[in-house]
């Protein structure tokens, strides 16, 4: 038979039993919608997760630390840094020095009147500060000038005034926060850092043995607070690592402490994009270092999201499989009703393959129609879900459109591949569930035509 004849025969058969066909198609529609909506929720979750991660910190920075303190463990020294730099995808490597075993203070004003105790000090390659993503509110990035440093956004509020009594010796920046969490006008700090001479004081040792080293600071810029970068951007300081380590060395020498080896405690490695993170990270790990990056948070989250997506998709798939049983059932019913017809067709010379084709096509058509309608309906459901989430009122078309495009806060996201997949899957389910009935039909003998009722 010609394809067109097969097709019209199949459609005629479907139209003969409209109610039954409709109900079977309805089953497929529900199954198809279930799959699409479930997976779209999974995709939406992933989207908002990625948005959240990118807010948490730079996804392309790997923090490298030595694996252990023993002599055998790999040293995080200049040689290691050079080999990191040669790795594929790595754009920047810098050690990061934070004085840990010493007592750091920043003092300012005449007679060291203002003191900030234990501020977060970070030493970095000055050239790396900008590429690493430290953002400035004010001023410029430091170059090689002596004592040049960037202050954290709120460093000015960590000073206490030693000339004032307890309770009145600090400026509370949190007083600027309103009850509802928004920030109002910040109070003025005690002094203007850019106009006041400041010194970084590092102390080691106890009592009479206490030794100090100090560095005169000049604040060249104010950083924007960024929790993804570290506390130094808030109430801290970023300065040239060479100056800081030189000061540390001389302090250790004066205090009779063991001279620090040439290894760093922390090295930051920046790669060119997210996809390079995993490979660079595992290469560094293989060299014997500990690594930390958003990747190690992103990976499990991604995996979890995928699992959730699979689970949701699986739930949807169950309903489509139930629909498939419905198709099979419908087809078996219709074949037992049409036994005589099939016998007649065979007696008149219809090929076995055509009989099979007619029934597979009928089942496939049910899948196809259900799939197409399912796609349309799930798109509508998805849009409705996104518009109605959070009980927000939609007043205008523009606003609605913007809400639908708001990446990261949408509940349901239907990527084009999902539609294609759902359609193919529905047709596949249809044809698949028609397979058994079609074979049943094929086995019907031409004799059925002769049998007397």
């Amino acid at each position, binding site marked *: 038979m010609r394809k067109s004849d097969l097709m019209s025969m199949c459609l*005629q058969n479907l139209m003969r039993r409209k109610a039954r066909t409709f109900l079977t198609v309805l089953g497929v529609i529900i199954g198809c919608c279930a799959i699409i909506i479930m997976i779209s929720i999974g995709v939406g979750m992933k989207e908002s997760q990625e948005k959240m991660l990118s807010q948490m910190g730079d996804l392309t920075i790997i923090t490298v630390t030595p694996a252990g303190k023993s002599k055998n463990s790999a040293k995080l020294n200049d040689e290691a840094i050079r080999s990191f730099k040669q790795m594929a995808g790595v754009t920047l490597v810098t050690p990061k020095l934070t004085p840990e075993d010493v007592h750091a203070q920043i003092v300012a004003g005449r007679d060291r009147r203002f003191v900030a105790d234990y501020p977060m000090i970070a030493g970095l390659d000055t050239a790396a500060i900008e590429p690493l993503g430290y953002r400035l509110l004010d001023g410029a990035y430091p170059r090689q000038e002596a004592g040049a440093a960037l202050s954290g956004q709120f460093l000015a509020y960590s000073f206490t005034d030693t000339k004032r009594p307890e309770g009145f010796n600090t400026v509370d920046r949190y007083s600027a926060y309103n009850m509802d969490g928004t920030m109002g006008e910040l109070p003025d700090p005690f002094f203007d850092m850019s106009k006041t001479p400041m010194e970084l004081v590092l102390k080691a040792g106890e009592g009479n043995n206490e030794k100090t080293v100090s560095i005169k600071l000049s604040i060249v810029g104010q950083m924007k607070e960024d929790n993804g970068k570290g506390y130094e951007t808030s109430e801290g300081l970023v300065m040239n690592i060479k100056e800081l380590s030189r000061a540390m060395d001389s302090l250790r020498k004066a205090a009779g402490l063991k001279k620090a080896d040439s290894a760093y405690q922390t090295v930051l490695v920046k790669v060119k994009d997210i996809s390079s993170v995993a490979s660079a990270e595992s290469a560094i790990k293989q060299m014997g270092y500990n690594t930390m990056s958003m990747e190690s948070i992103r990976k499990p989250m991604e995996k979890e999201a995928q699992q959730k997506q699979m689970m949701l998709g699986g739930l949807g798939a169950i309903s489509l499989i139930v629909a498939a049983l419905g198709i099979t059932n419908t087809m078996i019913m219709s074949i037992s009703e049409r036994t*005589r017809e099939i016998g*007649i*067709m065979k007696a008149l*010379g219809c090929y076995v393959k055509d009989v099979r084709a007619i029934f597979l096509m009928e089942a496939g058509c049910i899948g196809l129609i259900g799939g197409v309608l399912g796609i349309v309906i799930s798109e509508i459901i998805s849009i409705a879900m996104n518009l109605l989430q959070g009980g927000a009122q939609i007043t205008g078309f523009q606003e609605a459109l913007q809400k639908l495009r708001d990446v990261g806060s949408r509940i349901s996201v239907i990527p084009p591949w999902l539609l294609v997949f759902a359609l193919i899957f529905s047709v596949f389910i249809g044809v698949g569930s028609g397979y058994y009935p079609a074979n049943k039909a094929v086995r019907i*003998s031409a004799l059925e035509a002769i049998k007397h009722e």
Partner: protein
Amino acid sequence: MEATREQTPTPIIKVRSLRKEYKVGDEKVVALNDINMEVMRGEICCIFGTSGSGKSTLLNQLAGMEKPSRGDVLIGNVPISRLTEDRLAAFRQKHLGFIFQSYNLLPFLTALENVALPLAFSGVSKEARSKAAASMLVKVGLQHRMQHYPGQMSGGQQQRVGIARAFINHPRVVYADEPTGNLDSQTTLDVMDMMQRFARKYNQTIILVTHDPEIRKYADRVITLQDGDIKSNVTGEQIQ
């Protein structure tokens, strides 16, 4: 040519030692014992017998609907009892036609589509087969019923559609299984006249199964079955 064919008739159906047995439970039932027969080209052959005589089984065997337990059925020189299902389908499309007792028109197709159906199976285009079907329907006198569905026609009209369908592919052999079983006597005569007319006109062979003695007068050959054996095989004058 016409003259020679009439003088020396060529057999179109040859049956050789045909046996068919069924298993009913543990018992073997012999439906056809040992059938040997020939039907000539252009003959109207009536297979006559009471119910249970094996006449329906013989028709099924002659039409290749069932495989025999033993023996052969040849149409032309094709052993249809040995064809694969696909070859058999192709053979039916080209060479065989069927007329059924209960008409067996497909209820969702119009008279025209029903008549055209065998041509659809062999892949003839819609225009060509509609044209052929229309001319067949004119020949059976149903030019006004072409777009009617089987349910909208009388039994006699439906059987005429059935005849048109059986003859549309100009088959070598047309099988008719109790074609008038559901018809009144006047319609029976009309239908039989029509079948005879077609057979004569195109020199086609008809195998006619019936239990109605009246029908025998249309036949050139009457084969009477009894309990799976041929009781008599008579031609021409002997029939009456």
